[in-house]
């Protein structure tokens, strides 16, 4: 490693767009779920695809959507500086429990993922993993300018500029930082959207899985996890 000749390893700009898997039907590249892993670790993880379990129609789905909107469990993963705004939201001044919103420590049980501001590439990897481990229907609320267009980190070498290229987003809350009042307004808007049946991020993610995966792999260069972390 003493030979310090730095070359632009990115000579092939879309090298990451070529997945390691074999070509699938219709010429589209087929991404296998555990492609990113070394050969000996592949058997440890399941290689299932995400399946789009779409909304049912009718009164049952409306009722379930009402229940979902009234019971938003936030994944307790503070991905950026915006996570600090969730603390006043929880405690006595703003008290989000009034609206059925509460934090939950594990992605398996939570239904809302709050992206708290800028996401560095290292964090994005964890965001993708956590998002994929959540059970559908799942919703994403993105706080702050950084998640919308990069914010003050728009030209940083290590933070992504638009989170919606990597995971589907339901509600954006603008500001740097948005105050807890703005967060409450955002959560109310999310509840309205859920009740209207417009929050189908999990379905969108499953249907455009290849596109999201290619975007993720374009920025996450050391992909050492299964392609789909179910």
């Amino acid at each position, binding site marked *: 490693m003493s030979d310090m000749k730095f070359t632009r390893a990115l000579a092939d700009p879309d090298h990451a767009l070529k997945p390691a898997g074999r070509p699938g039907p219709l010429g589209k590249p087929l991404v296998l779920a555990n492609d990113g892993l070394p050969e000996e670790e592949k058997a440890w993880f399941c290689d299932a695809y995400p399946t789009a379990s779409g909304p049912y129609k009718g009164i049952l789905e409306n009722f*379930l959507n009402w*229940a979902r909107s009234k*019971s938003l469990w936030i994944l307790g993963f503070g991905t950026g500086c915006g996570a600090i705004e969730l603390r006043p939201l929880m405690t006595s001044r703003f*008290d989000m*429990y*009034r609206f*059925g919103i509460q934090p939950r420590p594990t992605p398996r*049980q939570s239904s809302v993922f709050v992206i708290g501001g800028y996401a560095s590439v290292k964090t994005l990897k964890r965001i993708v993993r956590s998002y994929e481990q959540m059970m559908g*229907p799942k919703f994403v609320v993105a706080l702050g300018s950084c998640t919308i267009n990069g914010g003050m980190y728009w030209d940083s070498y290590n933070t992504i500029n638009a989170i919606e290229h990597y995971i589907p987003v339901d509600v954006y809350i603008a500001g740097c930082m948005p105050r807890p009042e703005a967060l409450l307004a955002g959560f109310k808007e999310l509840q309205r959207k859920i009740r209207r049946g417009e929050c189908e991020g999990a379905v969108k993610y499953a249907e455009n899985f290849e596109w999201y995966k290619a975007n993720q792999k374009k920025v996450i260069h050391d992909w050492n996890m299964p392609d789909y972390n179910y």
Partner: protein
Amino acid sequence: MEPSIPLRIAYAFVSLAVITVYGLLLIGSMARISAKVQGRVGQPVWQPFIDIIKSSGKRNSISHGIMFWLGPVFRLAGGVGTYMFVPAVLGSVVFQNFSMSGDLLLVMYFIFFGQLGMALGASEGGHPYSAIGVSRGLAQMTAFEVPFALSIISIAVQYGTLDITKIVMAQQGGWQHWTLFTNPLAVVAAMIAFLGMSMHNPFSVVIAPQEIPIGPPTEYQSNLLGMLQTNRAVFNGAKLVLYMNLFFGGATNVPVMVVKTFLIYFINIFVGQAFPRFRVDQSIRFFLGVPTLIGIAAVVFIAF
């Protein structure tokens, strides 16, 4: 007149439904009381219902094998089993459950059955926090078991029976006949064990928020989580009814049952909001110290 067997089963379902709804409302109202203590408005009283509907209405779920799936089933069986062998309301045809068929030892077994089933299932999830939570839960269970069992022995000696219905019968005829006044030492030991059993602060080492985030149910989701949430209500209700029967004179109608169980459960909140959480070793040592001595004193006091 004894009702026929199918009718008794139907009554049992009615009784179970009532205790589920009541248990969920109890959890909701206690969460709201805790919120008031913390200066918040708090969640709606019916929030537990919405949570269960939402959890059960998730579109996909994952499994880690048959044992993982059986964990919540065992847990629910433990909750239902505990409730089914305790008379919720004395003399009521609907709420007497199958109390004639089982005794105190069977109920005690069911209290711990759920925890053991959960231990098997949660470990299957493979998450380290599940395993830590389970080992903590079993250790703490073993610890609060000691004062609880001593208290039960004391009561069995006092009334000369293990039949819960007979124990309740013996306490009728005025508050001065309650175990609370005839055998106060046993009640104190059992109530301290109850704090540990309910896993509120300061004995919340199993779920332990901010420590091992949620403990055993880390990997449980969707309908399995809904099952666990339902069980929480049933199990709480069953334990409260059992305590009411053993120590506080039982109940001869539903309103009395509601008031008494509410007050018994309120002790948890009262203590929990006043004290911070123990560490695991502190919690276990606590149960093996003074509460155990009180339990021994209760047995000695009654036996001689």
